């Protein structure tokens, strides 16, 4: 089955189903999940066949021959595997959770197009097809974000689409410049061409190509849209948005850093401690993203906004690891990419389950849901243990590899930022756990039941994945090593359950068994002593007085107020304000022009036309 089918099947079927839906009432979500399951099966069968020839469509515009190329590389296989997997899980989740949602069929249509376009982006072999599917992806995600229930969704999606279009224009100009220089856009030719160009030109081209990818990955200066988009997108879409969409930006960065071997293009540009300056700046951006993401995540009261900021800070980790372009860094970055996709989707799915039941995203309006929704609590608990990077889970392994890479090169600021991010993640990870699941149950949440099984199924699968990859990282490693062979980076040694870092090997099987041993010993001591009497949650010591409303016993609002006070001044000058003022200035500038040109009477129009023709003639005469 040729590679084209992968991208076009979901899009075409989605369109047909959308129009059929008016007549025959079939649940689009089920259709989506069936299609994704089929694709997932096909792709998993595709593993290992890296040698299948690339397919191309060639057609001619103004007698110029343009080729759209599709090729399968281990890197693109990783991404299409992850995309269809996440798409499948989320489609299953939405079967039940979309019941009372008005724009239901539009959601499924856009979702299918989005998945198809991401497959297209990742399978593309040349920049033009990459750009085409990139635009489809941006548009479909724009429609999805703006279809969120809250009014703020429009404003957030507006900011998202502006930043993306700015990135898209940069990419288009870069593609045109490259195209009319070498008349082909295949990655390999473009790479060879770029290394031939003089330094300043290639740097400009690379930056123009890099900016749209960095915007989509939500790195520091452009992380402005991520927060609004995540928290206002419909609750089923934000897992996909933060689990997958941010990764596609990272795919672009990998494309630039390793496919187009940026390393040897910049080998004679100025180096800072053995790293080209472009990479080092990217790494610094990654580090700053980690710190800002963590600090802002701790402050949030809205749980979706909090998890969105945590995605930003985790993205910072990946960017940092990839930018230092050492074998360990590359492996750590890819590992963290996969692990982040798994545990972030789990977190967002469990949050969506909670919102599905309690209809609110404000943390202080929830509490004590552990007894009502145990499965969601278990999924959330295992996911945050992974996010915080605590040993028996996969989160720790990828962070461990990243630390080895950072320490190996001795980058102080980056490792301080990395540690700040991971220790800070304990705080913002624990805040929703204690405000939503633990603490006192609100009276109005008395009759909440667990989410239906279809919504629990994805959580079970993802929980299993977190623990599986936590104990046996080898499964991920052989794929990553094939990718690094492709990009001629020395692969990192590994066995099924251990990875060798710069300073030592990490053996997760032994750690897990010792962990179980310690846990067992504590359990035995606990059991052997006198049984304790269960007592209600309201029977707590509050200096002698008994109050009756659980609200008074639930500590949830401004959980880390002392810590936020330290960063109050910093958070006030947030970047979004800077962007808004920048936007206002442009509008003022526009008004100035408008008043002078569009004056309403005919003479000025005529005068400008003549002026224009004169300039044109004059310019034509010179060139």
């Amino acid at each position, binding site marked *: 089955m040729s590679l084209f089918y992968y991208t076009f099947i979901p899009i075409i079927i989605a369109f047909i189903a959308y129009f059929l839906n008016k007549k025959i009432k079939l649940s689009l979500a089920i259709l989506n999940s069936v299609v994704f399951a089929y694709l997932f099966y096909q792709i998993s069968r595709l593993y290992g066949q890296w040698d299948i020839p690339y397919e191309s469509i060639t057609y001619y515009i103004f007698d110029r021959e343009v080729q759209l190329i599709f090729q399968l590389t281990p890197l693109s296989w990783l991404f299409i595997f992850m995309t269809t997997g996440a798409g499948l899980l989320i489609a299953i989740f939405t079967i039940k959770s979309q019941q009372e949602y008005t724009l239901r069929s539009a959601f499924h249509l856009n979702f299918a197009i989005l998945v198809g376009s991401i497959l297209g982006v990742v399978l593309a072999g040349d920049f033009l097809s990459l750009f085409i599917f990139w635009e489809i992806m941006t548009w479909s995600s724009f429609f999805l974000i703006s279809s969120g229930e809250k009014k703020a969704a429009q404003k957030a999606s507006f900011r998202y689409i502006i930043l993306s279009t700015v990135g898209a224009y940069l990419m288009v100009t870069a593609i045109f410049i490259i195209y009319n220089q070498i008349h082909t856009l295949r990655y390999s030719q473009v790479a060879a061409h770029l290394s031939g160009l003089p330094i300043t030109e290639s740097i400009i081209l690379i930056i123009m190509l890099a900016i749209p990818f960095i915007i989509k990955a939500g790195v520091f200066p452009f992380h402005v849209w991520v927060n609004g988009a995540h928290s206002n997108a419909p609750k089923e879409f934000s897992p996909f948005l933060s689990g997958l969409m941010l990764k596609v930006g990272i795919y672009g960065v990998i494309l630039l850093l390793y496919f187009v071997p940026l390393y040897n293009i910049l080998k004679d540009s100025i180096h800072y401690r053995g790293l080209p300056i472009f990479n080092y700046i990217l790494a610094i951006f990654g580090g700053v993203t980690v710190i800002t993401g963590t600090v802002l995540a701790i402050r949030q009261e809205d749980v979706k906004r909090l998890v969105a900021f945590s995605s930003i800070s985790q993205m910072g980790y990946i960017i940092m690891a990839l930018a230092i372009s050492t074998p360990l860094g590359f492996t750590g970055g890819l590992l963290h990419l996969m692990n982040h996709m798994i545990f972030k989707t789990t977190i967002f799915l469990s949050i969506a389950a909670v919102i599905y039941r309690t209809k609110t995203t404000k943390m202080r309006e929830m509490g004590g849901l552990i007894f009502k929704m145990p499965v969601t609590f278990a999924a959330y608990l295992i996911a945050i243990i992974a996010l*915080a990077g605590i040993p028996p889970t996969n989160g720790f392994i990828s962070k461990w590899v990243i630390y080895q890479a950072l320490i190996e090169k001795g980058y102080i600021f980056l490792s301080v930022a990395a540690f700040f991010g991971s220790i800070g993640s304990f705080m913002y990870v624990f805040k929703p756990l204690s405000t939503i699941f633990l603490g006192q149950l609100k009276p109005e949440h008395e009759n909440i039941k667990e989410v239906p099984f279809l919504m629990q199924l994805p959580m079970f699968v993802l929980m299993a994945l977190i623990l599986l990859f936590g104990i046996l990282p080898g499964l991920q490693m052989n794929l990553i090593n094939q990718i690094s062979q492709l990009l001629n980076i020395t692969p990192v040694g590994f066995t099924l359950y251990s990875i060798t870092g710069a300073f030592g090997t990490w053996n997760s099987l032994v750690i897990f068994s010792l962990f179980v041993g310690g846990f067992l010993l504590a359990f035995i001591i*606990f059991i052997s002593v006198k049984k304790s009497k269960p007592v209600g949650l*309201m029977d707590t010591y*509050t200096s002698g007085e008994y109050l009756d409303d659980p609200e008074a016993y*639930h500590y949830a609002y401004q959980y880390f107020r002392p810590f936020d006070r*330290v960063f109050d001044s910093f958070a006030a000058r947030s970047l979004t304000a800077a962007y808004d003022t920048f936007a206002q200035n442009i509008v003022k500038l526009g008004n100035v022009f408008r008043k002078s040109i569009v004056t309403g009477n005919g003479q000025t129009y005529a005068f400008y036309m003549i002026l224009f023709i004169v300039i044109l003639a004059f310019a034509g005469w010179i060139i």
Partner: protein
Amino acid sequence: MILNIFGFLMMAFSAMALGLLFIGIARKVVARVQKRIGPPFYQPYLDVLKLFTKNSITHGFIFDFGAIMAFGGMITTLFFVPVGPFVLYGMNGTLLLVIYLMAVAYLGMAMATVGSGNPLASVGISRALTQMLGYELPFIVVLLTLIYSSNTSSIIGIVQAQQSGFMNWNLINIPIGTAVAFIALLGLMGKKPFDAPVAPSEIASGPVVEHGGKYLAFIMLQHAVSVVVKTALFVDLFLGGGNNIFIFIVKMLIVWLLAALIGSIFPRFKVEEGVLFYWRWPLIAALLQAVIIIF
């Protein structure tokens, strides 16, 4: 495997006993500082025994699970830190692991205490996590320079590097780093200047407000094991852990009593003052040390 299990149990119980002994001695020394006789040094053993015999209440599943996870997590950390010559699992790459394993114990206790539904406990936990961010940063920067300077991240490797004589203890190679690590150790163990999370007067002993009977005994045992783990870690990394167990225990005692004495004379920091204290001079000193070592 069986030898492992025996070693496993031996080490766990001896660490508990040693930890309780250390706490007893510290109580005696602090009492002497305040010119009072103070409880007998074996008082912690009696406290733990009495607490195990008392009845206790539980607030549901998460309350028990958190207590077990905290204690289990701390015991697992014990196996990676060489106490004198004994280490159960010294495979390398353990230093980063030990820092994160200590977090397991914190997370377990945090879940248990917030699961108890008491607002005072959640306030205590939010203070503890905030302070954790404070003292963890300089501590890790110093560990980072240590890993870089002795370019192995396994504790045994670092200990071997310091074996030959007093001169190349890390105390001498990176003196500023050791001082910063000691200050961070105070925060790590929750000693006096940084015990805002368990402030008895403000939030009725913070996280342990609902822990009675065997749960309080679990918390005491976990604290005892954490004292042993953290002082052993400090001695291994900076004072060249000896392979003769008695010298090692004496070194640990000196470090522990020094921390206790500092603790007995300082009033308590407010939460954000504690965090800012750690991010002001100790962090700058740690970065200075890192710059010296790396460049």
